[in-house]
C-alpha cells in the first residue's frame, strides 16, 4: 500500500545535470520510477549529456517542467547554497511532493522554506534525507532499491544509513 508515491507518480529532478542528480536519477529510472523531466536553469531544451538520460526533457524552470509534463513530485539534488531556492521554486510551482536530498543547507534558509510551505499546496520531505521508496513501484532518492521488499510494514527513518 503506497502512501505518497507509486508507479503512476510523475517525477522531475531539480539539479539533474549535476553529478549526484545524474547518478541517482539513472538509478531511479532503472528502478522503474517515471522520470518525466529535469530542471537545470540555462539547460532547458538541451539534451542531458548522459546517454541513459538523453530522452529526459530538460527545462529552465520547475513551472515550465510541471506545465509540460504534469509532474506531481520533484527530487532536489541541488548544492547547499542554492537548494532552499530550488525548494521555494517548487513550492511556487505548486508541486505536491518535494523531496530534498541535499545535506548542509543553512538553517535560516530552511526557516524561510518552512514559512513558504505554510498554506501551500506542497508537502516537503527533507532536506538531508535519503528520500522515499515504494517497493517495485517508485523510488525518489538515494536508497539502494534491491534491499527493499513489498510487505505490510512501512519504515520511517531519520537518517540515511540508519535504515
Amino acid at each position, binding site marked *: 500500500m503506497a502512501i505518497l508515491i507509486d508507479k503512476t507518480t510523475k517525477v522531475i529532478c531539480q539539479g539533474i545535470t549535476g553529478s*549526484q542528480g545524474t547518478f*541517482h536519477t539513472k*538509478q531511479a529510472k532503472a528502478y522503474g520510477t517515471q522520470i518525466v523531466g529535469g530542471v537545470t536553469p540555462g539547460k532547458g531544451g538541451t539534451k542531458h549529456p548522459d546517454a541513459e538520460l538523453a530522452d529526459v526533457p530538460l527545462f529552465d524552470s520547475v513551472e515550465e517542467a510541471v506545465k509540460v509534463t504534469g509532474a506531481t513530485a520533484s527530487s532536489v539534488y541541488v548544492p*547547499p*547554497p542554492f537548494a532552499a531556492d530550488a525548494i521555494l521554486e517548487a513550492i511556487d510551482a505548486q508541486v505536491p511532493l518535494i523531496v530534498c*536530498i541535499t*545535506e*548542509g*543547507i*543553512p*538553517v*535560516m*534558509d530552511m526557516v524561510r522554506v518552512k514559512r513558504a510551505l505554510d498554506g501551500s499546496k506542497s508537502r516537503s520531505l527533507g532536506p538531508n534525507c*535519503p528520500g522515499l521508496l515504494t517497493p517495485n513501484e517508485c523510488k525518489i*532518492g*538515494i*536508497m*539502494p532499491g534491491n*534491499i527493499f521488499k513489498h510487505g505490510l510494514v512501512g519504515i520511517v*527513518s*531519520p*537518517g*540515511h*544509513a*540508519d*535504515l
Partner: protein
Amino acid sequence: MVVEKDMSLLEINPLVVTKDGKLICLDGKMDFDSNALFRHPEIVALRDLGEEDPAEIEASKHDLAFIKLDGNIGCLVNGAGLAMATMDIIKLFGVEPANFLDVGGGASKEKVQAAFKLILSDPAVEGIPVNIFGGIMRCDIIADGVIAAAREMDIKVPLVVRLEGTNVELGKKILRESGLKVVPADDLADAARKITGEVKKAAA
C-alpha cells in the same frame, strides 16, 4: 544580527545594569551555523585554530565530521545516525569508541584516506571497524579508499569492514582481490563482535 550572520546562538551573559542605569554586556557567546559559513568569509577570518583540537581541525580541512573520544576503537562510518549506532553497539560489546567519524555521502577515495589517517593519528586506537551502508556513498569508493590508506600507511591494527548498499558487490570484490588483511562482516552486530574479538586477540 542572528539572521544576518546566520548564527545558531547569540547569548549575552551576564547583562548588567549599572548604578547610573546603563546596560553593559559583560560577556557573550556566539555560535555560527557551519553550513552558512560559505557566505560569511568575514566570520571565517575570525577563526582561531589555537582554540581547537588539532585532529578536529584536520578533519574540517577534509570536510569530515569528527569528534575525538577516549576509547580504543576507531570507527569509520557513513551517516551520523549509523555512526552513533555503531558506537552504541561497540560499547555493548564491552569496548569504547576512540572517535565519532561520519565520512558523509558522496565521499571521494581521498576523503576516505584522510579519514583513515585521522583515526590512526590517535595512538590509543587498537582496532578499526569500517561500517558503511552506501546510498549516496558507494561501496567501491570506500574499498578503494581503504586499500589506498592501508598501502600508504602500513596499518598494524585489525581492520573489520562491513559493506552494504550501492555497489556492494564491487566493493567486496575490490577488498577481496587486494590481498589486504581485512576481516569482512555482515551486519552491525557481526562487525562489533569481530572487532572486539580481533582487538582481544591482538592484545593476547
